[in-house]
């Protein structure tokens, strides 16, 4: 299976601090996406980075991709209590299949 793995599994920070989550995957990809999930709710797409891109920004989100290391990181700057959620990475393979990681649980303490 090409399931990604997020690191750390759980992260707790103070409001205003930056949060960094990492994702590793196993085989080649077309793109990598990050999703957010609030407790008991569905997933929300955050940002997509293509395999030929190295860095992408969207508001307080910054995503990097290193295809040689098969890894990606998601940085949330100036975190807020409302950022508390689980964050998942997902990869799209050349065979058009999505694979999801197990997620990082982020808690932002007000």
């Amino acid at each position: 299976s090409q399931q990604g793995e997020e690191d750390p599994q759980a992260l707790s920070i103070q409001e205003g601090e930056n949060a960094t989550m990492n994702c590793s995957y196993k085989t080649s990809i077309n793109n990598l996406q990050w999703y957010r999930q609030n407790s008991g709710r569905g997933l929300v797409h955050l940002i997509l980075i293509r395999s030929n891109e190295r860095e992408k920004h969207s508001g307080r989100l910054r995503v990097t991709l290193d295809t040689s290391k098969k890894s990606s990181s998601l940085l949330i700057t100036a975190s807020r209590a409302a950022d508390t959620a689980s964050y998942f990475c997902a990869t799209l393979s050349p065979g058009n299949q999505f694979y999801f990681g197990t997620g990082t649980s982020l808690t932002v303490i007000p």
Partner: protein
Amino acid sequence: DVKVTQSSRYLVKRTGEKVFLECVQDMDHENMFWYRQDPGLGLRLIYFSYDVKMKEKGDIPEGYSVSREKKERFSLILESASTNQTSMYLCASSHPGLAGTDTQYFGPGTRLTVL
């Protein structure tokens, strides 16, 4: 606005019952997916479909079947529900656009409890 809806947010069934989970998308997407989400295991793909009448097995298809008679609707069927199928079920859809730009849209999920 993009929308994926699932027929129930919460469902309680008994062991051995036949269970239908419905998913509808209004974006004219070709691709639809069913996942289950369990603590510590992340999302696991059960079945997916790239077109009407087409279906393919994902990582954990055992105990499940699917139906895609119309483009906008993808149904997940538990032929004989078992307690180990208690889980959160998530439906998703996507349009296979240009390579490298495919994005999935998810429904709110159905929390199924099998007693």
